[in-house]
């Protein structure tokens, strides 16, 4: 911001200039960004599939594969949180701020449970990042996705905090819409990852 530009406090009431509201731009931009972000995952998925099908050394010595039952439970938690965040959004739409906060907090909690589950799994595995291309791919993929989950939870925290500014969410919130879009994105990515890493083991 320049010194010569007035701060938001000096501004007169927002005029309906330029035809478009600012919020519309934000969503357009955010969707474009998410499309681009999904390409990183596509690249990593492709890399994983290539290694899995062509590497002469896949599972490190002494490793049989991954256990599926526990991760599946955490997957269910994460995927169903997509439904919960939808409820939160709907509540905000109907102007029920308290209900919104409750669902929103539940989504955050479910995301956190997923992260804890992943941490526990990592701690119990018999191989590490340095164990061949398998270990490297496993930790990189799950870690990179986990980073997205963490980002999602933090962003939700921010949006929750903003909901406490009086009147802030009266007309809905672009931020909330964007974060919940992000959350659906993170969930879809996880489903693909789960299939690639846990289901496709043989």
């Amino acid at each position, binding site marked *: *911001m*320049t*010194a*010569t*530009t*007035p*701060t*938001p406090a*000096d*501004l*007169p009431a*927002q*005029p309906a*200039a*330029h*035809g*478009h509201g*600012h*919020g*519309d*731009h*934000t969503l*357009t*931009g*955010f969707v*474009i*960004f998410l*499309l*681009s*972000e999904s*390409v*990183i995952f*596509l*690249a*990593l998925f492709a*890399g994983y599939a*290539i*290694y899995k099908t*062509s*590497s*002469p*050394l*896949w599972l490190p010595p002494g490793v049989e594969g991954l256990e599926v039952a526990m991760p599946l439970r955490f997957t269910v938690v994460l995927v169903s949180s997509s439904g919960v965040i939808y409820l939160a959004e709907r509540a905000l739409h109907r102007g029920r701020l308290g209900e919104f906060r409750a669902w929103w907090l539940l989504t955050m909690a479910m995301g956190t449970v997923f992260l804890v589950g992943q941490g526990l799994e990592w701690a119990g595995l018999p191989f590490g*990042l*340095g*164990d*061949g*291309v*398998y*270990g*490297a*791919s496993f930790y*990189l993929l799950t870690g990179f996705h986990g980073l997205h989950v963490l980002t999602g939870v933090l962003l939700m925290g921010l*949006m929750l905090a903003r909901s406490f500014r009086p009147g*802030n969410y009266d007309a809905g*919130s*672009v*931020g909330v819409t*964007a*974060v919940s879009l992000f959350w659906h994105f993170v969930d879809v990515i996880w489903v693909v990852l789960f299939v690639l890493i846990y289901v496709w083991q043989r």
Partner: protein
Amino acid sequence: MTSTAPAPAPSFDPRVLKAPHPVPGAPNNWRRFLSFNTDAKVIGLQYMITSLFFLLVGGLLSMIMRGELITPAADLVDPTVYNGLYTMHGTVMLFLFLFPILNGFNNLLIPPMIGAPDMAFPRLNAAAFWMVPVFGVILMASFLVPGGPSGAGWWAYPPQSIQNPLGHFLNGQFLWILAVALSGISSIMGAVNFITTIIRMRAPGMGWFRMPIFCWTAVAAQAIQLIGLPVLTAGAVLLLFDLSFGTSFYRPEGGGDPMLYQHFFWFYSHPAVYVMVLPVFGIFSELFPVYARKPLFGYHVVAIASFAITFLSLIVWVHHMFYSGTPQWMRNLFMVTTMLIAVPTGIKVFAWIGTLWGGKLRLTTAMLFCLGGVFNFIFAGITGIMLATVPVDIHVGNTYFVVGHFHTVIFSTITYGVFAGIYHWFPKFTGRMMYEGLGKLHFVLTFIGSQLTFLPMHAAGLLGMPRRVASYDPEFAFANVLASLGAFLLGVATIPFLLNLVSSWVRGEKAPPNPWHAIGLEWLLPSPPPAENFEDDVPTVISGPYGYGLGRPLVEDEQRYVAKAASAASAATGGA
């Protein structure tokens, strides 16, 4: 990332900004170029100035290399230093000169051309710009770390790029990856911004097929950034892990595969050449109609061809790996796709020639650079097709022929286009005319210098001179002496250019709103335009661009805008 704040950016409110406000581009108040300014025109000039600085840095590195190569022996610098030099030269020229300068054009041109007050996300825009000096410093810092800068070339292939003989965590290769990653983030922020702006903020009446070609090529190029850069980022992250955290993504000992990196790298870096060349195609398509006084030949086809190029550019990358042990079926497939890309590209060249045909040509400096650029591009397209032919490439791949080919595009076409754009739009954004005499001197020196530098490289390459070497067989000496002399001449050619930029900006003749009698929304604005371009008096577009000689107005009430610009410009620059 994308700001989710519902609060409007202050620079967005036209009512406030109608108050006296420093005119972007005028040489007064230079301090705002050092601030986190959110005005697209200030950011555009920030990009321009930063990248011209790095052009000098990259040029200096190349002249040290040409100094080394003027004799066959490795006498000026030793081969390790030489490896660092070409790695840094390539990286600086791409990531710190060309990408940023083209983003400078995007910032300056897109909002006025479509009648928008600013970019869709002004703060994101400023943040994207300020990452450029940051990663510039990071990259330059690699000259100071133990072991010096990365010597793995701009493509950073493993295994060279995952070796860390000295064992320091902060090594040249690490800083290289960091810089390239930051550049990628900055470019994605830019791409989101440019595309959103063009989709959502066009003036009333400006449908897609009334948009100037520059905006079409901007969307086409930025779409490549969005699709390609993430793949490079993925490849670079794996590289970083292999280099610094002991993983085996690209190490065959651990089951990894170095070829995967090559795929990741070229999946982006081939299209990246189109990220650079598409906006220059846009510049050519803007300038030829102005200086030939004729409508752009085949406007619709040229517009659509941009997207054909985007699409095709994403499916040709393996032509960089013909000699890397690629299976034969893959080579054949990618040979065909590569040749296909010559079709939309050729269409554009024909459209420019069709525009020039029978036109009343005005040979301004900008026009000379366009003509020279297209001339060189035709040559580079021919050598490109030669390289796309597998049996040819097997022999000349990794020789100076490739170096000759891509410099003819990247310097003799793209950089010519950049120069043309600067000469053409400088008066619009600074309010001052450039000196035509110095400009023509710049053109003549550049044209002779670039032929002298790059033509002999093709010859040396056909005779078998490998690239990336500090010493070579004396049989190639003649070609190399010519190339070195040419490179020094190119160095000399920047002197009139810089002199021209600085002296015109400081004390050049005041520019009228439309010095070239061009058609386009940006030329209906005062020179330099006010902070919010048309503010809340956005014109309604009633016809397509390039109506030269057709005698139809571009916007409703055109005379009023012309008169307004003329009076506003004289008032705004009067006190500067």
